[in-house]
């Protein structure tokens, strides 16, 4: 059965069980929101996504209102926009720094900044007390806890509970004094936190930030994102490599990654600095007089080939063996097995899966 409702004058179809926000997101302009993450149960906290529904007693939060056939919904009216401006002004009044946030802090970190532009908010209207107590003293080198920018949308708490199942952080206190903390305010490393970084990536204000990425905040080049796959376990999480010029500056999860749908773990999120680590091998080495010493590619390749040829000649072609990597890409493993089969005509090849 097809279900329809009227959205800003247009008749649009929807599926049973969808919310008005989900229906509206597929059609027309984006309804503003700060507490919404499509992976999480809608909370209805920020109230920015309110819409007018004919016959309803006042505006309704579209993220928590189920779509029903025949509804007449308006997503943009003068009144709604006035409310939204008041809300954004209120939010910025306690988080004035939220209008300018380094995008390296996290995937969603620009959401408030974008709304501040859209509604011309600079934090001066409704000026008053601020509520966040930053935890710059938390010594972990991964998650910045700049709660001066916290707007109490609880996306971090919700992603930690609903997506990760870790329940490492929760809501403490109440009202304006609400804070986000681990049990007894302990540092994250002493809590159930697994440093998956999901809280960082869903934070709409950069109150939680990626400290590994932020070490490169001062590099002048623009940020480029390159889609790739995590190099650690076999799950195959999609992620974006963030680069500035020739420097790898960070990793962000890919929300459309088929295997992970936006999730990462501590290794995928934070353990990438080895790529440009000074310990990397940067030149071929050959053993001379018992020592490994630098060599040209020509010399090293000649030496490598000669050794294999010699073994084949002295001990037979079955005396040459190769081990392919379960870490390197297909093109490596394929080349290694082909190297053995083509050059020596044997199947003296294995990979590292048996140990």
């Amino acid at each position, binding site marked *: 059965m097809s279900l329809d409702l009227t959205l800003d004058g247009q008749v649009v179809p929807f599926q049973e069980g969808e919310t008005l926000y989900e229906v509206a997101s597929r059609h027309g302009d984006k309804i503003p929101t*700060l507490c919404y993450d499509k992976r999480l149960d*809608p*909370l*209805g*906290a*920020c*109230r*920015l996504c*309110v819409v007018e529904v004919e016959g309803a007693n*006042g*505006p309704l*939060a579209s993220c*928590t209102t*189920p779509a029903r056939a025949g509804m007449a919904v308006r997503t943009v009216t003068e009144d709604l926009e*006035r*409310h939204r401006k*008041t*809300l954004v002004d*209120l*939010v910025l*009044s*306690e988080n004035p720094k939220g209008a300018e946030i380094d995008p390296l802090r996290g995937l969603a970190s620009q959401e408030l900044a974008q709304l501040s532009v859209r509604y011309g908010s600079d934090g001066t*209207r*409704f*000026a*008053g*007390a601020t*509520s966040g107590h930053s935890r710059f003293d938390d010594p972990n080198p991964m998650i910045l806890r700049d709660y001066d920018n916290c*707007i*109490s949308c609880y996306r971090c708490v919700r992603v930690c*509970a609903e997506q990760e199942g870790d*329940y*490492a*952080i*929760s*809501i*403490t*206190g*109440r*009202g*304006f*004094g*609400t804070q986000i*903390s*681990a*049990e*007894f305010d302990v540092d994250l490393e002493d*809590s*159930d936190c697994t440093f998956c970084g999901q809280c960082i990536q869903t934070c709409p204000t950069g109150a939680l930030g990626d400290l590994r990425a932020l070490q490169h905040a001062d590099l002048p080049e623009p940020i480029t994102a390159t889609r790739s796959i995590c190099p650690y376990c076999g799950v195959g999480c999609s992620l974006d490599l963030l680069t500035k010029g020739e420097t790898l500056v960070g990793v962000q999860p890919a929300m459309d990654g088929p295997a992970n749908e936006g999730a990462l773990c501590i290794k995928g999120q934070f353990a990438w600095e080895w790529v440009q680590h000074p310990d990397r091998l940067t030149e071929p080495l050959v053993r001379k007089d018992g020592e490994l010493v630098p060599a040209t590619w020509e010399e090293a390749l000649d030496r490598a080939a000669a050794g294999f040829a010699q073994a084949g000649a002295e001990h037979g072609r079955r005396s040459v063996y190769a081990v392919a990597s379960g870490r390197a890409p297909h093109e490596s493993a394929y080349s290694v097995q082909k190297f053995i089969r083509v050059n020596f005509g044997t199947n003296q090849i294995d990979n590292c899966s048996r140990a």
Partner: protein
Amino acid sequence: MPASPTDEQLIKRWQDEPAPVLPLLHAFNERDGHISREGLEAISAGLRIPLANLHGSVTFYHHISGEPESRDRPRVCMGPICRLNGSEQLLHDLEGAEPMACAGRCDDPIPVLQADRALVGLSGDKLQQAPSPLPPLNPGGLEECCLASVREPDRATCSGYMRTGGYAALAKAREMEPEEILQVLEDSGLAGRGGAGFPTATKWRAVRDAQGGPKTLVCNADEGEPGCFKDRVLLDHDPHAILEGMAIAGLATGAARGFIYLRYEYPQTLAILERALEEAKEHLDGFEFCVRRGAGAYICGEETSLLNSLEGEHPFPRNRPPFPVTHGFEQTPTVVNNVETLASVAPILARGAEWYAGLGLGEHRGTKLISLSGDVLRPGNYEVPMGFPLKTLLFDWAGVPEGRKVQAVTMAGLSGGFLGAADLDVTLDEACLRAKGSFLGAGGIMVFDDRRDMFEIARQSMEFFASEACGKCFPCRIGTERLTERLSEPSGALAPEAWTEEVRAIGYTMIELSACGLGKSAPLITESLLRLFPEEVSAKLEAR
């Protein structure tokens, strides 16, 4: 002295009980004088609740805390009426005392809560334990419903209750089909007396018809609205009436289990209820009712916050739909009724729908309890017919002090904002009051005569809402704070016009967009202040 129970004993005592989190927190608090870190870790492990969540919830409530010896600290009521009676001085005088929101004893101030003792007195040396005052005899001689028998001696005991007709309605209901019970309720016109005014029969029917189970009853006894103390008088003096009402609700809906969620500030009521439950066992055959004590949070009077609190979840209000009638306690179909509503059920069943409906005036049906306090000669609980003139209650029944003029009264405790002197010509029913931009709500009315600084009363009121805002929705979390700041002395260098614009803009968005009643009604304070007392506001602002 018996050895204090071990962690394991306490957890074993509660872990297989329904809704074990609050009682366990209280048990540890009672044993240790605070909620210790080790205690919380034991509860977390015993009930398999994430420690961070449990810790977060503890920090939410006013009356439990991780601070050593916090349980025994005296808490002094800072409700508007108690302040008029000198509670700020009392707070100052009592060593180690801390302020507490209105503790529901405005008819006999000043309540001081210390551990399990509910004390009352106007100064430190006069504090003593005393039963809740009985309501004054109905000055108009009008027929009452839920207060009718409350003044009977021994009514709170089972034998006293039985002697005055108690449990006859339940016996009758046991002979009736659920639909017959529902029909009587429907015909009586009984509607939710906690403030929402939703027809009781409709709610019960929805639960009866809902899929899934087990079905659950909840008596909302988290009476937290400042200026409201009507549930307390019923619970203290007529507890069996509430149990009987719950049992009848159970018969009508098919719910066999029930909770009474009692506000923390009523410890003596807890004892009364527990005794009543013990005594009424034979009458309540087939039902499992128990009391769960709150821990100090106004928001838990909101039914979905209450359900979260009962479940041990963070007590934020839930989004609706789904509603509690289909997805309530632990997602089961749940009736949540106010104390007064439940107390009205047995009399209605005993005496008939027509009788109850006929108690109202004009087209209105039934009665309403009003908690009247402040600048009146005879404060207390009055049961008035729906549609009763406010002026009669105020001037003829309660009386105002000689030579004083009523400047304003609050409605719905604080939630309905102020009615000014010019607005007093109203009748006590939702239709009339809503036309004045207010509402009857739970029926608390605080009276302020011409001695009072209404700007200051408004400031106190907003401060209350700010300290009780849960923190879930943005307009209320930030709005109550900003409005409190603007009503307070150092509210910045705002010119009066800019001040008014900001207060109106914040209030408008709070009313329209807040997620629950707290945020929607708090700005009625500032709205009515601006409407009724523009000169006082200007004078205040100019004096800054």
